[in-house]
């Protein structure tokens, strides 16, 4: 299948000016500003095929949004090549924008104080969407996302979930082939997240929309993405399908144990029979045990603990994306 997005050796540097305080430095700041170059994206290369749902994952400040901005024609890379639909997205910005839809979770694309439906109508004019297509799409998407009754509400009166759904409809009003989603599920409740995910999957199934999304939510990745790209400090760490990343990196689960009294790590030596197990002190009564869940079950560890120590409480949690990245590094 054809590559819809191509990125080759892309590098993006931000120049930040450092202002010193003090009266003397005011003039100095203007004449010889101190600047520091910050590499936001470094030597990034990947290709995305039509119909993929790609999760672009990394901790805060890893360069995710910068990449999206470069792909959508807002920012120019310092070096390297970017092609979306075979063309430079910045040089062909207007043309490119007709075929992409973008949702920034943190910023609404809608007009703040007019009803959402009127925002959509304005976008209809901007993208020159025919009347019948417009009606069909609004009807269909609003139905799927269950926002019909909210469309007449000004955006400023909407809840975050309603706003996000309307933003999604707005990004899809011109039937784009690529959908860029920058943290689409941030701050939403579980039910709303589920509905959004189903919606995105349905869109991908029926319209073959390519989706490029960034997220901090492991569930988003698991339910949506058939491919993940892990990045940190602007560099790519991993590119492949989700199963292999899990196979490869998510071997561990976290077991948090609260004891009745203080134990040192040495006192937990009885756990040494379990291979591939890491113990970490969180505070004097709490310990974090990372265990390889493929080698043994949690009940073995817990029963062993109960036998030898005074356990007050314990909880198990999956690794977060941040943990996965730590593993990869």
């Amino acid at each position: 299948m054809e590559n819809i997005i191509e990125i080759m050796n892309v590098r993006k540097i931000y120049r930040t000016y450092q202002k010193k305080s003090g009266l003397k430095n005011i003039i100095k700041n203007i004449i010889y500003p101190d600047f520091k170059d910050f590499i936001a994206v470094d030597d990034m290369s990947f290709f995305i095929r039509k119909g993929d749902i790609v999760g672009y994952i990394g901790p805060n400040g890893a360069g995710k949004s910068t990449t999206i901005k470069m792909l959508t024609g807002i920012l120019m890379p310092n070096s390297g090549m970017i092609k979306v639909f075979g063309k430079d997205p910045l040089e062909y910005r207007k043309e490119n924008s007709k075929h992409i839809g973008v949702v920034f979770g943190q910023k609404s694309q809608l007009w703040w104080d007019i009803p959402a439906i009127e925002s959509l109508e304005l976008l209809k004019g901007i993208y020159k969407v025919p009347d019948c297509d417009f009606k069909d799409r609004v009807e269909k998407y609003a139905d799927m996302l269950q926002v019909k009754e909210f469309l007449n509400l000004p955006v400023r009166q909407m809840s975050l979930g309603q706003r996000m759904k309307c933003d999604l409809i707005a990004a899809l009003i011109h039937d784009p082939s690529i959908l860029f989603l920058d943290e689409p599920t941030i701050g939403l409740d579980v039910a709303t997240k589920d509905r959004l995910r189903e919606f995105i999957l349905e869109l991908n199934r029926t319209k073959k929309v390519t989706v490029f999304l960034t997220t901090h939510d492991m569930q988003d990745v698991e339910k949506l993405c058939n491919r993940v790209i892990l990045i940190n400090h602007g560099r790519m760490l991993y590119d492949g399908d989700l199963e292999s990343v899990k196979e490869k990196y998510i071997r561990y689960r976290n077991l948090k144990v609260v004891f009745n009294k203080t134990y040192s790590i040495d006192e937990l030596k009885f756990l040494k029979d379990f291979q591939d197990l890491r113990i970490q002190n969180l505070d004097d009564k709490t310990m974090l045990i990372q265990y390889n869940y493929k080698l043994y079950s949690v009940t073995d560890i817990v029963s062993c603990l109960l036998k030898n120590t005074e356990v007050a409480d314990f909880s198990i949690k999956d690794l977060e994306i941040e943990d996965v990245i730590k593993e990869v590094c």
Partner: protein
Amino acid sequence: MESIQLYFDLIKAGLKRFAEYRSSFIAGFFGLIMINGSSILLIWVMLKNFHTLNEWTFWQIVFNYCLFLSCLGFHNTFFRHISDLENHIVNGTFDRFLLRPVSPLLQLASEKISITDLCDFTTGMIGALFAAKMLHIQITVGFMLGFILSIINGVYVFTAILFSVSCISFWTMKSKSILYSTNEIQESVQHYPISIFNKAFKFIVTVLLPYGLVNYYPSLILLNKVNVHWVYVIMIALVDMIYGVIGAFLWRRGLKRYNGSGS
């Protein structure tokens, strides 16, 4: 053509937005009438004692004042919010303009409309025409044509200055403070014929921040206070053009910079 259609569609949305804040409109409306009424009253009180100000009579000054007011009103209605460019750049909402297949400038210009300021526009129009009548000026087709051209020129001058200064935000992130500092200058030009000020000030408001082109020079022509008109017409056209070129240049450079550095 499509751009114009789109502009009006977007402006229509702005009107709806204004309907959401009706009481603020009414309050603003009365506020503007009070401000302008008291300003004219002040000039009247002053000229009651002096009769003329540097060979300008009361009604000539009213004409000068009202021409400025009417241009400012129209400018504020449709273009004042261009200075929001600063907020768009600081908040990163400028990105939104770049994600759509329409010129960012058109999107910026059509973002808002401030109906309240149309009150200034009409007050200025009526005031200026009334003053012209009091000055026994024949309201001919030629005069009206000149009057309308003056208003178009005035709106253009305001918008060109505002636009050029706003573009500075692409580099500094801040530009509104520069605009606020020009308020005093604007008021002086609005209230008095600039001939009463010294040469340096005259130069500033003729070339650097050409607010004088809005009312003073057109008034000279329209009220027949000078013999040779065409010199002034050419001067106005020239400064207008230069400012237009500067604005366009800053905008293009600013966009490039934004593409390079983001917000």
